[in-house]
């Protein structure tokens, strides 16, 4: 095995998975699961926040004015295909030269590229597919364009936008662990260290933690959606999501 230049969690060999997971030291401290998990969650939250700030307003405005149809179609293909690891790797020397440090800029940008397509695409399709009659009725009632977009179109599209957020968030959380192989830490560190030390407990334990966080993310977004999206709009989801284009 090639030696890793990064700090590694020292774990006694031959310790069982249950034993490792119930040990207080596993969870606390600088190399503990809580601190590593927080690293991961912070980065993913920053990526998702930036992604939503970029994708949702631009997609909403373009869909409202019925422009950029081609961009949306091109993104369908791109969404599943961003080679995060390669992109992040290419950015490492660039980040170092600019003095941004080894981490976390490369992985941040790579994850952002991963998050943007589903966010943009779902916002775009959802707003584009708001029923024409509703929009016409709103206009006839004398609502301004801005209010129309914010209070009618966005409100009706909210549920499908949340599907995009969930897809993006799960992909980001599921991909973030490669950060551990790019000079960072985060929740992926246990798999990395386990592989480096040939320690199955660490590999399996780390893998389970990552999978659990990805699953939790999906549930968490659904919970937020339930709190934010009105009941009536949620029922529209099945109909709109069934139409072509949106990821879900």
């Amino acid at each position, binding site marked *: 095995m090639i030696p890793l230049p990064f700090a590694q969690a020292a774990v006694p060999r031959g310790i069982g998975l249950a034993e490792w997971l119930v040990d207080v030291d596993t969870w606390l401290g600088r190399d503990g699961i809580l601190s590593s998990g927080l690293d991961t969650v912070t980065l993913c939250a920053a990526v998702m926040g930036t992604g939503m700030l970029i994708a949702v307003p631009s997609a909403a405005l373009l869909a409202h004015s019925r422009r950029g149809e081609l961009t949306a179609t091109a993104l369908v293909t791109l969404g*599943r295909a961003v080679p*995060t690891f390669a992109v992040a790797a290419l950015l*490492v*020397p660039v980040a*170092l030269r600019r003095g941004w440090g*080894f981490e976390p800029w490369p992985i941040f940008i790579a994850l952002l590229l991963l998050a943007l397509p589903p966010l943009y695409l779902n916002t775009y399709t959802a707003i584009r597919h708001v029923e024409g009659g509703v929009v016409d009725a709103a206009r006839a009632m004398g609502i301004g364009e801005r209010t129309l977009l914010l209070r009618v179109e966005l409100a009706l599209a909210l549920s499908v936008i949340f599907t995009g957020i969930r897809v993006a968030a799960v992909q980001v959380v*599921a991909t973030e*662990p490669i950060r551990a192989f790019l000079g960072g830490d985060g929740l992926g560190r246990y798999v990395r260290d386990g*592989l480096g030390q040939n320690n199955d407990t660490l590999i399996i334990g780390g*893998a389970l933690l990552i999978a659990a966080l990805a699953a939790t993310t999906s549930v968490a977004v659904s919970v937020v959606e339930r709190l934010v999206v009105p009941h009536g709009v949620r029922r529209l989801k099945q109909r709109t999501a069934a139409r072509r284009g949106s990821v879900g």
Partner: protein
Amino acid sequence: MIAPLQAQNPIIRWSWFIDEWDQVQAALVQHLELTLLALGLGLLLSAALATVALRYERGAPPITAGAAAFYTIPSVALFGLLVPYTGLSRATAVLPLAGYTLLILITAIIDGFRSVPAEVREAASGMGMSPRRRVLTVELPLALPYIITGIRIATVSTVGLVTVAAIIGQGGLGRLILDGLRRAFWTPMTIGASLSILLALMLDLAIYRLGAAATPWTRRRGA
């Protein structure tokens, strides 16, 4: 951590590329092999599962939901989970990679066959075609554009994921990336990452061309 001096290594040193071409070529070949193995296996499984889903209405939702759930399993986690059972072997890389193609391929195959108009199917049966012949000579060609689009997406995403398999000692070009990162010697890393992106684009183009050649009737309509 990385010394500042090493950070100043050139992003690419062409002499390395020429001197170490054997290593680069081997990585490229392995990358291609892993991609094709995963795609082949994924396509076989998807064809079988999609057949079940198309045949029995009730089968479709659980099959697509299962594939979607699999798709959300983090790749690092899945490679890690398999290592204790299948070791640092090719199977450990290929099985998850094939699994990740299922969602894209099954959806594409189901969409493709569902796009065949009922009249066409009835006409084929009315002409006396057996169900098997109807599926193979009428429905499959009509479903092909959807399936080819699915294969293209699956291919590009698999080429990208193969690099991650480098963490379990497989991974073709991904090994060059990891190697470069570990030594803060950017040349192999840049070459590995660039070639993996290039490979994805080339395969995408190749499958697109093959697909266009296999479905000449789609060209006129401008679909």
